[in-house]
């Protein structure tokens, strides 16, 4: 198994051998289930668009909870030192941890697939819109996890990492919302950086390469910075 696979296995085991994975999944399913059933009752529309729009808030809170311990805890407990001296690259460490957190994120959103069964039970949903929404959810998850990892890399305290991560994601959400409907380069930049517009397009049933590239490139950029931060520790 490659080094990345080993790190991945170690991290995913750590998640599922501690209560964190189960708590996160349970919390998410309660909230997303509430939004789903309430929005279905109100709108009477066989779509996930409205319930997923609300779920973005919950994901902004839960993604940093998933990532908060990834690097912060290792720095605090000193377990990162053996990792730094092992025959393993910084990229493999960071990427393995990222994949583990992203996997947990995807396992967390997987139960929402039950909602599609409910939608089919009461009407005929537009499966194209649902597929594009899930593609968006998965890509957005990678982006959220990478932000959480960046914060975890620059702090030593898990709680601080979680709080900063949540604030950062909510800011990204808010600047996207605040810039909607405004003109000018500043608002256009804010709209591009903010997550709202990119995510909304997926929920409508459109796959736009601008949104895909936004999520993928932002995730890659943040992971690159995380690798550089981890690498810098060798030389301090």
């Amino acid at each position, binding site marked *: 198994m490659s080094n990345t696979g080993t790190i991945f296995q170690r991290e995913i085991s750590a998640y599922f051998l501690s209560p964190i994975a189960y*708590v996160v999944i349970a919390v998410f399913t309660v909230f997303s*289930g509430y939004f789903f059933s309430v929005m279905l009752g109100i709108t009477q529309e066989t779509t996930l668009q409205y319930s997923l729009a609300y779920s973005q808030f919950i994901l902004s809170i839960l993604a940093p909870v998933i990532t908060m311990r990834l690097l912060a805890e290792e720095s605090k407990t000193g377990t990162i030192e053996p990792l730094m001296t092992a025959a393993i690259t910084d990229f493999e460490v960071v990427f393995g941890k990222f994949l583990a957190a992203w996997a947990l994120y995807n396992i967390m959103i997987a139960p929402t697939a*039950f909602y599609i069964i409910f939608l089919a039970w009461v009407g005929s949903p537009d499966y194209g819109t649902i597929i*594009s929404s899930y593609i968006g959810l998965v890509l957005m998850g990678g982006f959220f996890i990478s932000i959480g990892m960046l914060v975890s890399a620059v702090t030593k305290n898990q709680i601080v990492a979680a709080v900063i991560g949540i604030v950062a994601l909510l800011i990204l959400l808010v600047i996207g919302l605040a810039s909607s409907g405004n*003109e000018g380069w500043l608002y256009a930049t804010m709209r591009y950086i903010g997550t709202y517009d990119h995510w909304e397009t997926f929920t409508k049933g459109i796959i736009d390469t601008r949104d895909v590239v936004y999520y993928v490139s932002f995730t890659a950029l943040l992971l690159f910075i995380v690798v550089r931060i981890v690498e810098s520790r060798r030389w301090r």
Partner: protein
Amino acid sequence: MSTVHEKNRKDWFDLYSGYIILAGIVAVVAGFGVSRIFDSWGFSAILPIGIGGGAIIGLSTAAAVRNKWFSTEASKRKALVGTNVAVMSIFAAAIFAIVGFLNNRHYERFDLTLTGKYSLSQKTENILKNLNKPIVVTTLFNPGEMFYEQIVDILKEYAYHTDNIKLQTIDPLRNRTKVEELARRLKISDLQLNTVVFECGEYSKHVQQNEVIEREYPFKFKGEEAFTEAILNVTQEKQTAIYFVTGHGERLFEDFDRSGISGIANALKRDNCRIAPVDILSKKKIPDDCDILVVAGPTKPYLTEELNIIRNYLEGRGKMLLLLEPAAPPNVPTGFRELLAEYGIMIRDDVVVYVKTKMPLFGMQTVAEIYVGKDEYAEHKITEDIKNYNTILYGAASVGATPPNDQMPYQATVLMNAPDGSWGETDVVNLKYIKPEQNREEDLVSPVPLAVVSHVKELPQSVLKSHPTMATDPKAKPQGARLVVFGDVDFVSNEFVDNPGNKDLFRNSINWLAQKEAQLGISAKPPDFRKAVIHPVQIKVIFWTTIAGIPVIPIIVGSIVWWKRRR
């Protein structure tokens, strides 16, 4: 002494430099905020940014020197590593920005919806592919408006298919300055809200909300048809030239008073029409570039010479919109009777009386307003979109169509009638003094026509059967004059033009005369709301399963794991 002084200075720096740097950051942010609020980089924005930025750089440098950040080997290495991370991060961010920029210019969109909700028709795609002029599309919608999102989404699809469309949105409630700026640029005094403005060079076309939504419930979205037509309109080399005849007491399009018709003139300008006055008698001809001649409520008779000029114009396939009034003062006809008769149109010297309500004590009351509703519109391209709206006429004369005549090349058809119970009162002289009573021998009895259209007859069925290709060949179709005649002008005056159907009836008439009636054939899309039929039991099952049933699974699994590890 010097030691004490040095200690004091150090204390001051250590105590306050952090706060000053923080204040500097606040000043920079505030300056930036001021620049965005006032939309300029004036003194009030530059000053705090300059002072704040100076304080941050100056004090940070001083702190680095004082604390010897670069003096020891360890601190040097730490600083270098930090700088290395920062520089590489900035470098990566620059690459990210370039990728984002390029991606914004060259992108692909895939519509995964089952009904192709965001996909354009092949017809529109072909038009966009051949578009060779830049068009600025501005949405002037309150974001809460019906179909707003769908309008913006489909316009994004237009922008995706061609680089020649630039899309911009203005929230009219939050950005009045930009609305006013746009109105100035378009030279329009009243820019209507909840419209989409298409601009191409000096031409512009406004698509209003009611043109985008099919009015019958369930509402359908016909944005593609309206927007594609607007693109065709603004990219046309030639605007529709409309001349308003003056010199006989006609309503003036420069008149902003209640009786003027400046409102409808603005609506025509929004439809990419060019309007101008024409005095037939002094010019001795109708201008060569005239696409439509409008005679808006003359109160004085036309001379025979003028009528002959109009006759010549019509014979050369001219188009005319005539808005008449009841003969007032009585027995002063405008002189159009004979001319219009050549096109199968009959005008009378009467006033349409409409018995509207039964008032307690006063009995049935006649009113000047004539409400034309769904049942009173005839089947015609002009009226098909406005049948759910009333047109309100105010003091109209009846205008009828002569029965079909084999000798006449023109066919006149009634466009709309007054409601049942109305009649054409011929005793106009005494109308002001006595309550009108229907005289079945002299007055025109219901149905009373209020507007008529006339155009050259279609090819007979026998000809089309023997030559089927002629049915679809536009060149084979008979060409000739087109006329629309209304028995009222007040319905388009500034006072009444904002009634629900009035403006659209007039605009549709103009479009029909200009032969711009929608021929795109892009059908309206149903909203595709995908409604569910949910029984109360079903929603209870869904609610409890989603908020309690599904979440309990990870809790049970987590508890088992915890229990096993505990042992």
